């Protein structure tokens, strides 16, 4: 009954919240969860700190959609922005909740 799916975790600046959400909806994610976060990376802690906290977006999707999302956010627009993403394998019970009927 358990179905394997992919969890995509994206960390970026608050500024790009809507951009990323648009990508997710676009690529067919049925939902996502967003938490506020602070971070430190190649740009240092300070910059992110000042421009408001980072956000962490998690979405559970099929592996194909996961690839599409990763491709989109590693595309040209985000080349120079602070966007970090990784995927991992998860199991869900009611898979129909995570897959678009259309």
């Amino acid at each position: 009954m358990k179905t394997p799916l992919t969890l995509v975790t994206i960390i970026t600046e608050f500024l790009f919240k809507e951009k990323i959400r648009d990508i997710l909806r676009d690529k067919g994610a049925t939902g996502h969860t967003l938490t506020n976060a602070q971070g430190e990376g190649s740009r240092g802690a300070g910059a992110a700190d000042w421009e408001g906290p980072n956000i962490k977006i998690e979405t559970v999707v099929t592996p194909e959609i996961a690839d599409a999302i990763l491709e989109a956010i590693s595309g040209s627009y985000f080349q120079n922005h602070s966007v970090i993403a990784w995927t991992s394998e998860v199991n869900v019970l009611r898979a129909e909740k995570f897959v678009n009927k259309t």
Partner: protein
Amino acid sequence: MELLLQNLISPVVLAFILGMIARWVKSDLEIPAQIYSALSIYLLFAIGLKGGVALSQTSIEQLIRPMAMTLLFGMATPLSAFLLLSSFGRLGRIDAGATAAHYGSVSAVTFLAALEVVKMANMEADGFLPALVAVLEVPGIIVGLLLARPRGNAEKVAGAASLREAVHEVVAGKSIFLLIGGMVIGALSGPEKFAGVAPFFVAPFKGVLCLFLLELGMVAAKRLGDLRCAGWRLVVCGCVLPLAHGLIGTLGGHLAGMTPGGAAVFGAMVGSASYIAAPAAVRIALPKASPGIYLTLALGVTFPFNLSVGIPLLLCFAQYLANL
């Protein structure tokens, strides 16, 4: 000199210094991000409201010359900043443009601090000044971004798209939005209806500013650590620019017919560097520009410079102009 000391020893400036000390002694003091956000919403909305009430008592004729002067400075200061930063400061086109956008815009907190100093000196500042803050905030950022744009054609298209987004980010960004929104509400409500909300938006204002500067001090202290990377040439720029812009701005305010207090505040506005609206716009339109440069200069050098030396100096200059 006495005025300078007098200015430095006020709860607002001392709170800023206390915030810096908090970082230096590695205190675990932290103002939650949400509280910081709430404080800035309060401050911007309150400035807007008070400005709007003042506007409702100002005639349009009184406004025309100050408005024109503000637009003029909004266009001119990013240019002069760009020139200085890319020649003496040795910055590349992108970083120079990004930083120029900050110096072309205005820092609301510097504006507030200048108002306080003027009040403390028992002088008056024109009521329409908050409206000028809103007017001054946008054009400088646009000019700065244009200066930073690549000349190449292929890139230009991509740049153009971002420029539009960046301008939207500034105009619909919370700082301008609250300022203008508050101003409209204040102007529509007028003094009588405003009286009902005044105990919340007027009396506690300066105390809230105190807490805000406590946090700002902590952020600025972090930035100061980046000064070494910035280099002494940039630090010099960060002091010369507010001074030069500030003096010319004060003169402009005087010529536009402002009171001495108003001219000094106007000079401080022109001399100040934005660190709320501009960074957001620059992040979007110029992701390659280094925050380690523009934020450090705006918040780590120019803001403390204005707070400590710039504002009292401009006030003296305004008084001198008035007595000519």
